[in-house]
């Protein structure tokens, strides 16, 4: 159905269900409990799960299928963001043109960067993409001509006196918030049941809709003849050319598609929060999406989404745990033991969350080459096989 196999359709529906129910699923702890810290169900964070999910799904089309590891995808994220802010400023505060144009602008930029970088493969390709991204970063930050479009170090944001040629002038005297035909992205509906509080945010569901479409397209690409050629590029590029296929346009197409996904993610960030800064083009953002993809499972369909969610959760929740909170948790232990536990755990939380991330990344790379999703699949297979043999 919809051009998907039964298994893929079920997978897509499973993700849809998670997206729809996330505001509830991610807030499992009552508001007044000590564990409410770990609730991830607030709009800002949930939007980021989805947006980085899109970024990682797209990245996986390049890295997971063709094996080409780009270290420069932040350039497309940033370009998409800038383009989106300009659309909000010049055209309309409606987010649709912003999202579309951000995707197209990133597509054009990735065509140029991809065309040149794909003249090399392996580590040289990675370094070329990194170099291009750093050039874009430097240009956006401080090259006079370019800073007219990027706002340099200050960045870009919407303002009251923006032209917005398609909109009627604001009458309230406030900067209008990004909206979808009048529905503001920051609008939320809150629902409290007992001590639980759930927030259903308009922007989150717009992101959810876009991500489900992006995910659907990614499944279709993966299951197409084109997708099979991309896997063949990864498996044996040279053999492919002796088979009558020119691998170059395939790889370039994958690069542009993944660049467009990055641009779309950048555009959505702006649609949720109408500003763009040069840090979005920094190499750390390029590295982050690599981590997400590998952690979740390179080449798997939903791995990147989980990887993105996990890293964003770590970043936002783990980083909040501080020393006094730890003392509170371990208060039931005798003093000396309490101090010991706090001393051992503290480096891994709060500002040290990167340490935990690094450790989990190492563990995954060493023990689960297929990432979390790959690990779960092989575990499932092993159990399934065992029970089959027992029969």
């Amino acid at each position: 159905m919809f051009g998907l196999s039964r298994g893929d359709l079920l997978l897509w529906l499973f993700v849809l269900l998670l997206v729809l129910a996330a505001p509830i699923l991610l807030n499992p702890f009552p508001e007044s409990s000590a564990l409410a810290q770990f609730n991830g169900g607030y709009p800002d964070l949930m939007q980021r799960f989805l947006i980085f999910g899109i970024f990682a799904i797209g990245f996986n089309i390049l890295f997971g299928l063709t094996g080409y590891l780009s270290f420069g995808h932040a350039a497309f994220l940033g370009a998409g963001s800038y383009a989106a802010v300009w659309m909000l400023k010049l055209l309309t505060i409606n987010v649709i043109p912003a999202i579309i144009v951000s995707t197209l602008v990133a597509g054009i930029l990735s065509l140029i960067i991809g065309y040149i970088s794909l003249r090399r493969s392996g580590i040289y390709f990675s370094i070329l993409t990194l170099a291009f991204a750093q050039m874009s970063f430097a240009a956006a930050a401080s090259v006079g001509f370019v800073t007219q479009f990027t706002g340099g170090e200050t960045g870009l944001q919407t303002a009251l006196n923006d032209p917005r040629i398609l909109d009627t002038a604001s009458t309230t005297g406030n900067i209008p918030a990004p909206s979808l035909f009048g529905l503001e992205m920051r609008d939320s509906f809150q629902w409290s049941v007992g001590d639980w509080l759930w927030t259903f945010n308009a922007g989150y569901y717009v992101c959810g809709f876009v991500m489900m479409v992006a995910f659907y397209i990614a499944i279709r690409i993966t299951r197409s003849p084109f997708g099979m050629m991309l896997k063949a590029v990864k498996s044996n590029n040279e053999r492919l050319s002796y088979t009558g296929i020119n691998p170059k346009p395939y790889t370039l197409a994958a690069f542009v598609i993944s660049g467009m996904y990055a641009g779309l993610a950048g555009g959505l960030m702006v649609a949720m929060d109408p500003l763009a800064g040069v840090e979005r083009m920094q190499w750390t953002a390029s590295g982050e999406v690599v981590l997400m993809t590998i952690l979740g499972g390179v080449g798997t369909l939903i791995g990147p989404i989980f990887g993105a969610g996990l890293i964003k959760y770590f970043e936002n929740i783990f980083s909040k745990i501080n020393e006094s909170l730890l003392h509170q948790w371990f208060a039931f232990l005798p003093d000396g033991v309490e101090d010991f536990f706090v001393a051992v755990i503290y480096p891994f939380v709060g500002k040290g969350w990167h340490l935990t991330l690094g450790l989990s990344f190492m563990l995954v790379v060493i023990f689960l080459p297929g990432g979390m999703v790959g690990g779960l699949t092989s575990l499932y297979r092993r159990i399934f096989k065992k029970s089959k043999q027992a029969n």
Partner: protein
Amino acid sequence: MGSALEVRGVNKRFGGLQALNDVNLTVEEGRIHAIIGPNGAGKSTLLNCFVGRLKPDSGTVMFHGQNLLGILPYQVNQVGVSRVFQTPEIFADLTVLENVMIPALAHRDGIFEMNAMKPLLKETDIRKKAVDVLEDIGLHDKLDMTASSMSRGDKRRLEMAMGLVQEPKLLLLDEPTAGMSRADTNNTIEVLKHISKSRAITMIIIEHDMHVVFTLADRISVLAQGTVIVEDQPENIKGNKKVQEAYLGGAH
């Protein structure tokens, strides 16, 4: 029937080694032409010159009137020349079926096709074609197996299926039965014989197994130290003195 492949005066030097020395070869259309010779004679090097893996220092290689020198490997394939390599070159991470569907798609769609939204499941014709060839070659019970987990002999047969599915005008086979069991070798002989007859595919086959050579070949060229020393009918090769010398003296 005319000639399918005309090789004239091909030379190739690797540093101080003259790997190919003024090689001339004419392969008649629809025939099976064997190239034999001791290890290191330059047989694989010669095939590399046909498909764009190596560029000869001089000489011409004409295929049905088209010059194969100076065009890229995928262009060589698209004019109808498929090759099976000496060390199996397959898509190791993909399934057996996918390995054969890829060349089938290349044959139908050309060097590039942006069919990213078309489900592979709907490519029933391509799938059927691939399954048929795998059936001919005896791998139909391994369709979903990952290619890397197959035996060496099976990998060779898979690569042969990859070549055959393209219905090439010229099929280049570099030691197709090396590493195969007797039974698989006999099966391969049957398959190649059948295909050569039914589809009139021209074949060049490099082979050390003389049983295979003498069962299949319509004509044989003997290569030694980069030079074609004899070219003749199979029955005349067996007793040829030069050939025996090349094998005894040449196999260092």
